[in-house]
């Protein structure tokens, strides 16, 4: 009984899971194995070394990119989990990789189809570094919260409400049996009720806010203190720090990452899951604006669009840059490119400079352009890109030897490169055919 009987997870092109409505990702763990210890040949597949994502509805397991696609991404609905075993602390567990065990009871209506329909105990083996204890508590919390039932209820109750509303709209009795108010007094009463309810909800909301604000100050202080500690730790005697300190430092860095506080120090832990996931998400997001912009787009534009799309939880420019530079490691169809001038853009892998160069060549061979050259704004109009971007294209065409520049009081213009066409042994020789000859025909005759 091989075969994967767990529900599969749909992935986007860049390897991000497609989530259910109202599903929220809560925790990431890398380098995770899912094993079934009961028997070697149960219905539960052996999932080796992948990324484990805990959401409010499911446990998602996604194979790491380096592993071949023999095992596909799969999920365990939290609904099918019947028991989570408490995390046992023993002397033995100190040396082995941290493990979390839970029991899965297969049932078709909960998404786990199985021929055996026997519950099994599954062990999560955390090989990579990660805060296992935090995972367990979050896992426990989500499993208890039963968010999947909420969404089920929401779908069923919304239909109920519609039915009730339809039936109660007529008659003097409202659905809960009270006498409906009619006439002007009814309208006034209703108005007042509305006022009262909004007032109450506002008060509630502000109460929450006040509580948050009083806590926020403490939180900021705590974060600041942690940051300072990390800073001092990294600056003083980095060589002599023992393993324990290193471990706690990593833990702290990940903690900071998880709250979203990215201080310069935590950047040292490049490749943390935060940036990986951000990178994948960004890759999915970029596709649409990139197509609209013709296959190449300024990094700054993407930064604005991406943060506008996020709404809250804005990312810093540094995070964006890190996320973009991680694309090299993933199999995504886009790349970050830096022009010689330092301008950074995002472009499709399929986007070829050759195509642009051909267009530039055609443009620059027009009689007008032969005579007086082209400016970046001319190129921008032909190529349909921003002038700054057009200039980058022209400069890279120049470095390829297609164009050459003319700097004069009139400005900075580009011409087709004739230098390679001219015979160095006989300066006056003009070949009958070729760019040089057509240039001579284009310029006004003198003498």
């Amino acid at each position, binding site marked *: 009984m091989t075969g994967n009987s767990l529900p599969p997870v749909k992935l986007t092109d860049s390897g991000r899971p497609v989530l259910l409505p109202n599903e929220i990702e809560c925790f990431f763990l890398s380098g995770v194995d899912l094993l079934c210890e009961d028997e070697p040949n149960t219905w539960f597949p052996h999932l080796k070394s992948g990324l484990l994502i805990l959401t409010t509805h499911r446990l998602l397991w996604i194979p790491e990119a380096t592993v071949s696609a023999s095992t596909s991404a799969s999920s365990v609905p939290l609904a099918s989990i019947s028991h989570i075993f408490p995390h046992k602390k023993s002397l033995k567990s100190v040396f082995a990789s941290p493990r979390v065990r839970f029991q899965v009871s297969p049932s078709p209506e909960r998404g786990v189809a199985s021929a055996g329909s026997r519950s099994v105990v599954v062990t999560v083996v955390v090989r990579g570094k990660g805060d296992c204890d935090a995972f367990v508590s979050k896992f426990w919390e989500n499993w208890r919260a039963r968010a999947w039932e909420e969404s089920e209820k929401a779908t069923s109750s919304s239909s109920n409400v519609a039915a009730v509303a339809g039936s109660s709209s007529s008659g003097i009795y409202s659905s809960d049996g009270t006498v409906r108010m009619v006439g002007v007094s009814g309208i006034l009463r209703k108005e007042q009720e509305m006022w009262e309810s909004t007032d109450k909800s506002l008060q509630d909301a502000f109460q929450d806010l006040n509580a948050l604000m009083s806590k926020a100050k403490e939180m900021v202080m705590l974060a600041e203190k942690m940051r300072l500690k990390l800073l001092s730790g990294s600056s003083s005697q980095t060589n002599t720090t023992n393993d324990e300190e290193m471990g706690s430092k990593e833990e702290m860095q990940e903690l900071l990452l998880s709250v979203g506080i990215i201080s310069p120090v935590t950047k040292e832990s490049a490749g943390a899951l935060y940036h990986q996931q951000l990178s994948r998400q960004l890759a999915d997001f970029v596709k649409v604006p990139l197509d609209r912009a013709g296959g190449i787009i300024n990094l700054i534009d993407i930064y604005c669009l991406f943060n506008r799309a996020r709404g809250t939880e804005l990312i810093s420019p540094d995070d964006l840059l890190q996320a973009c530079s991680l694309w090299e490691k993933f199999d995504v169809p886009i790349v970050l490119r830096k022009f010689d001038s330092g301008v950074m853009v995002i472009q499709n892998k399929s986007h070829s400079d050759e195509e642009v160069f051909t267009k530039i060549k055609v443009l620059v061979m027009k009689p007008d352009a032969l005579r007086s050259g082209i400016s970046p704004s001319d190129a921008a109009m032909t190529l349909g890109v921003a002038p700054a971007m057009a200039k980058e294209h022209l400069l890279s065409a*120049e470095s390829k030897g297609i164009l*050459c520049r003319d700097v*004069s*009081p009139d400005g900075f213009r580009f*011409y087709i*490169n004739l230098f390679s066409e001219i015979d160095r042994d006989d300066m*006056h020789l003009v070949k009958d055919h070729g760019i040089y000859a057509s*240039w001579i025909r284009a310029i006004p005759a003198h003498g």
Partner: protein
Amino acid sequence: MQKLGEFKLPHFFNYPPYFTLQPVRDTREKQIQLWKELILDYCKTQKVFVIGLEEEFPLFTNTVIERSLTFEAREAFLSALVSEGRAEWMDKGHRKCLILWHRIQEWADILLQFAKDNGLEDGVVTIEEIRFGTESQGTGLEI
């Protein structure tokens, strides 16, 4: 075709990028090559020996397309000539350049040939005689 006095200028003299020092290496090398040829050609036919970088020099300005070489460009082209042995700086500040349309070795050969042709070996000849003597007519030594 454009002319500078009696000197016939090549077509590319009206090519604006010719007057801007090109930043790309391959293109620049080719540009410097063309400038070297043109300077030597011009100096040879017009019997010009010295080019001052800060002085007006007819080749370095093209009034038709309103372009002229910058100081850096002039220095770059003349330095290229110097490094090839076709010119020499006359001062340490690189302000004046002696153009050798014959290399020094070639000048020596010409002088020797001149002496041999006219039976002047083992004799004494003044520079004045070489420059203005009837024997030196048509040898390239008469200036």
